[in-house]
């Protein structure tokens, strides 16, 4: 950036140079994080496009290319027509991965946003009111946390049965305590600050103090946790599906694709390698973005 444009920016939007603008500048310098972000945005874009295609064509493309079997061409290795090859039922693996984005990426996002909202409210209440309320809420959260995450998710799916919504619920519940803890900690440090006292002095209600004064200031750690949690959720959804408890074949969920591949490990390498690779890349990208965000939002923490 040239000096002139920098000056211009400084003079025109001094107000906008908040924490977020500064953080974005620092984030931009982290090349790995920017590449990861672009990868993720592209993946999300592709996912949205498939949703639009399905709506417009009334699932006919989905049924034809992603679900319908073509046994004469099964296990065909990667070629120019099918860059990632065909699977055990002769379906194009690349298309299945692309159509699977919604189950892995979008479902994880939905689950984590749900967990984040619930956890935020719980944590804010605990942190703001303190005392007995805090004690009761946080002990409950501790109990959920003292179960291994995967065991909790498996137990919930076992009780509710497999299926999209049930997987969402089982993934979300395990992350609620994590968010509650983070928000509670932030709220406890922020509620003693002067601007909160000032808001109280002018007679603001508890609700408006929590949502308008405190929560915006607790956003930074929350956003970092959301990024990391989405990565964790993708892994869990894939894991549950791999165990046959999550999303079931022939739905092209990435983990479910691996379940089937396991049976044909002696016949073809590509049906195992690619679905796993896309899971790895997505989680890697999210983790790098999360690390980058943490460094950008709180430079003191770096190293």
């Amino acid at each position, binding site marked *: 950036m040239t000096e002139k444009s920098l000056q211009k920016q400084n003079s025109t939007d001094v107000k906008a140079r908040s924490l977020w603008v500064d953080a974005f500048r620092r984030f931009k310098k982290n090349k790995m994080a920017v590449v990861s972000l672009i990868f993720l945005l592209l993946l999300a874009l592709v996912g949205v496009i498939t949703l639009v295609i399905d709506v417009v064509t009334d699932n006919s493309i989905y049924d034809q290319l992603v679900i319908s079997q073509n046994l004469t061409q099964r296990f065909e290795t990667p070629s120019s027509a099918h860059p990632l090859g065909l699977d055990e039922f002769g379906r194009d693996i690349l298309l299945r991965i692309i159509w699977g984005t919604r189950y892995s990426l979008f479902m994880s996002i939905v689950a984590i946003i749900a967990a984040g909202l619930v956890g935020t409210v719980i944590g804010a209440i605990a942190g703001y009111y303190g005392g007995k309320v805090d004690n009761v809420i946080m*002990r*409950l959260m*501790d*109990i*959920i946390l*003292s*179960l*291994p*995450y*995967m*065991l*909790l998710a*498996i*137990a*919930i*799916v*076992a*009780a*509710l*049965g497999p299926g999209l919504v049930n997987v969402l619920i089982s993934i979300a519940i395990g992350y609620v305590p994590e968010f509650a803890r983070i928000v509670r900690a932030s709220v406890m440090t922020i509620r003693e600050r002067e601007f909160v006292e000032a808001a109280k002095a002018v007679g603001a209600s508890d609700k408006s103090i929590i949502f308008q004064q405190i929560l915006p200031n607790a956003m930074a750690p929350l956003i970092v946790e959301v990024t990391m949690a989405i*990565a964790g959720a993708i*892994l869990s959804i*894939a*894991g549950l599906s*791999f*165990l*046959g*408890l999550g999303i079931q074949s022939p739905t092209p969920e990435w*983990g479910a694709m*691996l379940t089937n*591949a*396991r049976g044909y*490990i*002696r016949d073809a*390498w590509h049906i*195992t*390698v690619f*679905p*796993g690779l896309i*899971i*790895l890349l997505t*989680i*890697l990208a999210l*983790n*790098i973005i999360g690390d980058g965000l943490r460094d950008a939002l709180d430079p003191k923490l770096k*190293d």
Partner: protein
Amino acid sequence: MHRYVIKRILMMIPVLIGVSFLVFLILAVSPGDPTRMILGQQASEEAIVAMREELGLNNNLFVRYFDYMADVLQGDFGVSWKTKLEVLPQVLGYFPNTLILSLAGILVAMLIGVPIGILSAKKQYTWIDNVTTVLGLIGVAMPNFWFGLLLVMLFSVTLGWLPSSGMGEGVALLPSLILPALTLGTGCAASIMRMTRSSMLESMRQDYIDTARSKGLKEGYITRVHMFKNALIPIVTVIGLQFGMLLGGAALTETIFSWPGLGRFMIESIKAKDMPMVLGSAMFLALTYSVVNLLVDILYAYVDPRIKAQYHSMGGKKRDRKIFAKAK
């Protein structure tokens, strides 16, 4: 010291009650009528009513939980709906296999994670550090069930060196253990490595390291004794946590390698809709996990003399009050 241990054990009781209630709540209140599961769809109304009475389903949740836990404490985890076998002997039969696998997994993770973490901290900002950092990131992001499949592909299918599934007996145990242990251990190794690195970097910056160097001690000795020993607490924590996770979450690895462990048994019971077996396995795994966490906490006091010293210098009650005040 003993007081500390006893106190930690007593603090454990509410957690165990909470955890067991949560597991019971999730699994015992699942939708669907268990009597139909047991008696079949054609069962008569009277038989179902009688069965509901027998299973105590008409009682409220707390009574049912209390009854179940009273039985559990006497070693009675119930009877399978499908096979009519007792749950506890089944669970106890599969658990040692999970334990063997988890121990092997954590051993692999420690052998990989700790040395690489130390090396990468000692060589901070060199290419070695960069490579290991990237490997660590990949290791954490790797779905371990996928990594397991890749290992099978390479070592069983292509090279034919190791068995791809099952648990060998006697001499055959070791080869059958290698791939599952590697699968389980790699993800943990990455976490342990990252923690070792940052903890070592922290202790490298302390003044006593400069003192040690100016005394003319050898670098290797300083690394081992002055740096590593002081960096140990967070490393032990992460190892303990990971081990607990392995015990509770080995289901995936056990499924890939058809390892006859408790996790895989639980998954199969879920598929067979055999709730007493699922509840028994989940309960057993959850309680074991809590106990492992307790042991890790107690281990701290042994690893870190400061915790012990703190306790001795203050005397039990006073210290408890101080901690309580801090927590508030």
